[in-house]
């Protein structure tokens, strides 16, 4: 819209906004590389005197964690990191695979009307604490509490409507003539979709996968409610450090937070082009 350069007064405005946006991330990263003596110094130290990676090492060393001897926290983060990866990756795979099949079905073979998005959105409006309640009941009857399959099932269920709707918006963009041509060539319906539809939406597929992964990777409450001794994810571990130590493990916690954040910032960067569509459930295309 009418390309003009920034006005002079707008430049400082932009810089102040940038500083405000980046400061919390800056603070977190700085805390992660502070030596223990700087963690909770008063007044707070902005840039560590001797930057160190010791916090990251401590994170994966049970003995080192125990050595801090605060609040009885003895767990290394190894299990939580592995747990987060296992749960997020498998749930993302399931939700995207099932979502892809449903999206093709919805886009190509059934009618959608105004209520469809509302039904799908309502899944995201329901407070997660309330979704967790029936899951806890059913899982305790089927001994799925405190297990990865249980967590993966919840994650798949809550992200499936999202992945379906998002992928449907990409399939909707494709002219169906291309698939029909493949079918006329003698390909079966499934092969036509597999060889024509899927390759054409691979950008959308990647973005959807990334967004579902972000949702799963960030999820806290379900994991918290289901977990006891066996199940662990990064957000649960992070909250546990905060609760148990009232935050006094500053540097170690920040190190874990930074590790958790890195894949999302990178992933988000790659899917920037589809971010608006993903976050508005396809209502905005670009």
């Amino acid at each position, binding site marked *: 819209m009418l390309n003009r350069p920034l006005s002079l007064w707008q430049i400082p405005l932009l810089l102040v906004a940038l500083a405000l946006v980046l400061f919390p991330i800056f603070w977190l990263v700085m805390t992660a590389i502070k030596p223990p003596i700087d963690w909770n110094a008063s007044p707070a130290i902005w840039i560590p005197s001797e930057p160190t990676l010791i916090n990251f090492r401590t994170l994966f060393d049970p003995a080192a964690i125990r050595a801090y001897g605060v609040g009885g926290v003895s767990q290394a983060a190894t299990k939580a990191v592995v747990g987060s990866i296992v749960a997020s990756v498998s749930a993302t795979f399931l939700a995207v695979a099932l979502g892809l099949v449903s999206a093709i079905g919805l886009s190509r073979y059934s009618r959608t009307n105004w209520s469809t998005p509302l039904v799908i959105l309502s899944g995201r409006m329901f407070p997660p604490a309330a979704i967790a309640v029936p899951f806890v009941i059913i899982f305790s009857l089927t001994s799925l509490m405190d297990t990865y399959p249980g967590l993966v099932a919840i994650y798949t269920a809550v992200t499936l409507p999202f992945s379906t709707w998002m992928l449907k918006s990409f399939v909707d963009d494709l002219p169906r003539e291309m698939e029909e041509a493949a079918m006329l060539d003698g390909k079966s319906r499934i092969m036509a979709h597999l060889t024509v539809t899927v390759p054409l939406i691979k950008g959308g597929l990647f973005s959807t996968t990334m967004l579902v992964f972000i949702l799963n990777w960030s999820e*806290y409450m379900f994991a918290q409610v289901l977990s006891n001794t066996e199940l662990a994810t990064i957000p649960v571990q992070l909250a546990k450090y905060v609760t148990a130590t009232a935050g006094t493990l500053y540097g170690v916690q920040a190190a874990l937070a930074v590790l958790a954040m890195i894949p999302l910032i990178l992933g988000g960067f790659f899917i920037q082009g589809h971010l608006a569509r993903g976050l*508005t459930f396809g209502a905005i295309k670009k």
Partner: protein
Amino acid sequence: MSNSRLNASAKNQGRVFTIPGQVVSLVVLVTPLLVALYMSFTDWSPTRSSLSGASFLGLENYQELLIYDNRFLQAVGRTALLAVICLSLEFVFGLALATLFLRTFRGQRFLFSAFLSPMMVLPVVVGYTFWMLFQSNGPVNQVLALIGVTSVEWFRDSSLAFLAVVVTEVWHWTPLFFLILLSGLNAVPENPIRAAVILGASPRQVFWKVVFPALRPVIIVAFVIRAMEVIKIFDEVFLLTRGGPGSATETISLYIYKLAFNDFQLAYGAAAAFLVLAGSLLMVHLLMIPVRDQLLDNRG
């Protein structure tokens, strides 16, 4: 959506595609919700008997919540207040930032990514980071001290704690408004703007009379999506204030969480959740009515 070239049998064959998704949703989403719905009409609690043995109360839980449960009503009011304040601020900041990005300047692509980054941070991490920032010896207070405001105890004062939650939320989600409004602004056609200029409209008039109306559906989408998220807000507040001091920052989700998993009043918590769902659905529906034709048009 229908296509005459696909005959009915092809359509029926094709419908097979929707079955796996429907089965999964039915088993892992609809069933638990129906269980929860039934439960919300009973007095069931895990410390007592099985679900089938619980006595049926009808609408008693709902009645209790809506008429007598002040803590619930306060949580609802507080969440609504939080939503109104946060969304207004996020809209204003997001719009201001988006209009800056309509200009061209060096490093625009990099700054665009930078301004989106807060959205990518895990809510738990956001909660923890701002908890650090708002410590009494933290950097926020250090900056405040420069302008003569000293020893602010953010988490001991009700309004200050609420303010801390607002700041955290606004920081976390202004980028979403920024992103949505910027793509909306970029999609506003240029010629009506030119036409308005020729007819004598000032930049302000062009914005309010031409750009803003074209942007309206996008603005509503942004508000609806953010409102849905704010209603559910949990992680950030849980790590930042845990709902305290007292219940000064206790949102609906926090209250339901405490009911269900601290006090084990699962049935009552479920009833509260369904009330929230009904309220949100109604709100979203009302908000979307004026723009739904436009939205469906865009979808083609």
